[in-house]
């Protein structure tokens, strides 16, 4: 029951956030004053944060609000306030010549959306007449692989061998694999009135035992230095080293400029750390 409710609400929330993001993006394009544009952009960033959370990336959702909507947009709004001059109203909204530049985004958008919609979910279809269709990407949130066969007519029975020494029946069946790996599944159709449908087909594909983008796995490996495989800790160490180097560099530069400004007395206050 819980699952089915989420199955309805997940896409609904996604389309809500996507709609807000798109509308705010259009608002940014048509904004009269940069401060309005900044508020629209904050709307885009907050709704994108919601989409990240829906896509099982809670860390990036937090980072999006913290860094983008918090720090960067705060800086932008602050600078707009500082430089707020009456002259801004004399700048035309668009340079009419630059509207020619709209052609590029329109063409690019049409091409990108066309490519995205023509590329369907990866399904492996054997060329056998039984029409075995295996779609490992059918359910992104679980490790279940969905197997589907074409309708072989009345009286047909479908026998699936999943490749991990288990079998199943039915025209459409889901199977969860205990271990990730490459499997070869086999479908045998028998008893169909149309004799040409009584055949078998195989398909090889990769199945995942771990659900995709699993939060439990993410949080377990995020800060664990001993964990094998990619962990976030390397990134944090890198960023930490860069920050440390920039702080040291800033102190050294500040000291040098202080000394060159007043060479007779040594600089004894750096002021910031």
């Amino acid at each position, binding site marked *: 029951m819980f699952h089915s409710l989420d199955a309805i609400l997940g896409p609904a929330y996604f389309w809500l956030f996507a709609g807000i993001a*798109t509308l705010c993006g259009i608002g940014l394009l048509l904004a009269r004053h940069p401060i309005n544009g900044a508020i629209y952009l904050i709307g885009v960033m907050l709704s994108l944060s919601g989409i990240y959370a829906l896509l099982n990336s809670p860390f990036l959702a937090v980072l999006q609000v913290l860094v983008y909507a918090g720090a960067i947009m705060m800086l932008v709004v602050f*600078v707009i306030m500082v430089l707020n*001059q009456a002259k801004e109203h004399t*700048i035309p909204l668009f340079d009419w010549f630059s509207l020619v530049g*709209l052609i590029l985004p329109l063409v690019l958008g049409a091409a990108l959306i066309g490519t995205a919609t023509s590329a369907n979910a990866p399904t492996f279809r054997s060329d056998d007449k039984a029409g075995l269709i295996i779609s490992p990407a059918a359910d992104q949130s679980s490790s279940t692989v969905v197997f589907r066969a074409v309708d072989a007519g009345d009286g047909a029975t479908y026998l699936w061998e999943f490749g991990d020494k288990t079998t199943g029946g039915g025209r459409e069946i889901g199977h969860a694999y205990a271990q990730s790996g490459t499997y070869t599944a086999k479908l045998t159709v028998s008893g169909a009135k149309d004799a040409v449908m009584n055949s078998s087909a195989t398909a090889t594909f990769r199945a995942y035992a771990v659900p995709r983008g699993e939060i439990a796995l993410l949080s377990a490996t995020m800060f664990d230095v001993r964990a094998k495989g990619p962990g976030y800790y390397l990134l944090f160490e890198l960023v930490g080293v860069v920050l440390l180097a920039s702080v040291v560099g800033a102190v050294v530069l500040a000291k040098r400029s202080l000394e060159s400004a007043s060479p007779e007395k040594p600089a004894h206050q750096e002021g910031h750390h």
Partner: protein
Amino acid sequence: MINHIALVDVQIIAAVLFCLGLAVALTRRNVFLLLMGIELMLNAVNLSFIGFSRTFAGSESLFGQMTPIFIIAIAASEACVGLAMVICIVRGRESLDSDAFADMKE
């Protein structure tokens, strides 16, 4: 578990946002909106990365979620440097029109 969100839809939204950002950066004359258009494009790329990261299994999906962290850091530094340049140039020219920035080498 939520998520019966089709990954194609995520990519379409990312494409729409990227094109909106590109349109803002190309057509608007105010230099602040130009910078914000670039930020919007970076955000759209982040969304695309996170959408694609869900096509991998648990531990492998970290690759797709790691790149947006770099992009966020780059966007933060880009905003700092860009706004500092805007302040410097506006001090001299008293205009926020991007046409006033055309002859920076003089």
